[in-house]
């Protein structure tokens, strides 16, 4: 088992980290601080944050409707939520381009803009928050909410003071996963963004371009940065998961 993990995962990662600094630390700093890579990294983090935030709000709302307000056809909606997990991401990109691209039937022309990157990442990361909040909402005891209501609390107060605190760890771990996914996403972004340097080029595509034009050292430097971000996010998700299940384990 450990051998498998070493050969498949650890060894390639080691090779990556090693080659990122094979030309020295100064070359590593050089490649992660060129204007183009900095611009790509900034765009990546900004869009990913915006995407994670948007899906935090709407994902919670969708989970709420599915759990608390089931309607005719809600089980179908529930099944469709997982579509972005099952659909190849490049297809997701093509579909967003079909609806919001040059031949848009709704006359939204977002192709090759930052808005298109935002839209396609919303698609790809949609399930994360819904799927982490749903089980927690199922577990939450509604008696406390009823007690609050009977004591005269308004709906907003009930949600903010009673419901939100119990689902917050779920929301946050979903957000962290969506953020990690949005940072690294390639397939869906490559078609819709047009990959224009300083404008719509995200970090993962920058790596792709550099490696295919022979700049392995530069690509490795930025890749190591993304690797570090992934590790930090995984640690955060692990911590949040423990926080989310603290009632079960107690």
């Amino acid at each position: 088992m450990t051998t498998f993990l070493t050969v498949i995962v650890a060894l390639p990662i080691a090779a990556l980290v090693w080659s990122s600094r094979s030309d020295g630390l100064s070359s590593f700093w050089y490649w992660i601080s060129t204007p183009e890579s900095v611009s790509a990294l900034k765009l990546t983090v900004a869009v990913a944050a915006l995407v994670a935030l948007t899906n935090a709000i709407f994902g919670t709302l969708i989970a709420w409707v599915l759990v608390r307000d089931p309607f005719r056809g809600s089980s179908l909606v529930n099944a469709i939520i997982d579509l972005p997990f099952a659909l190849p991401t490049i297809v997701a990109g093509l579909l967003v381009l079909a609806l919001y691209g040059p031949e848009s039937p709704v006359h939204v022309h977002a192709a090759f803009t930052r808005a298109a990157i935002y839209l396609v990442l919303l698609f790809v990361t949609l399930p994360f928050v819904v799927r982490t909040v749903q089980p927690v909402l199922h577990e939450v005891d509604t008696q406390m909410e009823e007690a609050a209501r009977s004591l005269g609390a308004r709906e907003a107060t009930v949600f903010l003071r009673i419901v939100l605190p119990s689902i917050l760890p779920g929301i946050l771990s979903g957000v962290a996963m969506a953020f990690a996914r949005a940072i690294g996403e390639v397939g869906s972004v490559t078609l819709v963004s047009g990959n224009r340097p300083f404008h719509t080029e995200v970090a993962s595509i920058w790596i792709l371009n550099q490696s295919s034009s022979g700049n392995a050292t530069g690509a490795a430097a930025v890749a190591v940065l993304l690797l570090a971000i992934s590790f930090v996010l995984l640690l955060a998700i692990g911590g949040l998961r423990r926080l989310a299940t603290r009632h079960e384990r107690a």
Partner: protein
Amino acid sequence: MPSAALRRWSVRSVALGYLLVVLMGPLAMLFWRVWAEGLGQAWSAVTEADTLHAFQVTLEIAAIAVPLNTIFGVVCGLAIVRRRFPGKGLVNAFVDLPLALSPVVVGLSLFLLYGRTGWFGPWLTDHGVRVLFALPSMVLATVFVSVPYVAREVIPTLREIGDEQEQAAHTLGASGWQTFWRITLPSIRWAVIYGVVVTTARCLGEYGAVAIVSGSISGRTETATLRVQDYYENIDQAGSFGVSLVLALIAIAVLVLMTLLKPKEGTA
């Protein structure tokens, strides 16, 4: 209370409206565009020799990656839940890593390991083994990105069922193998099957890592997802939407399977 009804109705509409704009609208476009481009044209693109070859490559990769990761996922899940060993935290972290890591980083890592100047590059060249721009590297990339899915399904299920039955079997004289086949595996089978379904979907849809290591040569190292891009870049709309439709139909079949398997997981 009319205001409560209104509130419920508006929350529901906002949620469904968002799904329509972000998810269902684009999905509907797929069917619409294939129809608009002409079913015949889409069909001829899908049955083109290079496309069929691309699907074959994708299936070959999945046929290797899915069984490997299924076995690994079960073994790894058992080790993490049932045993204590040094470096367990590290194993746990590496299993989860592909969930958070960009596929491009995966592809690049393999490129640097097996490429001409990589650690294994010279040895491989000397022995005439082609890894990069050939099936082996594409399999390695796909196995890497799909490592976590079976393990992640198996681990919570193993925790939930506990080890009392396994210990009982052990006390009654069952060997390790017998306990595994008769007690453990049957009780986690739905989690394993669910994990296999998700792993398969991930393998069929892999793009970023394979894009770097495959070289994307039509009729040779092109997978189905790379084929979609190839058609798109050659401004062949019927082709890219046709291949996408096939991939989407597979995704929908996967979705149906996931939905059917989910409740059983809870009752098992």
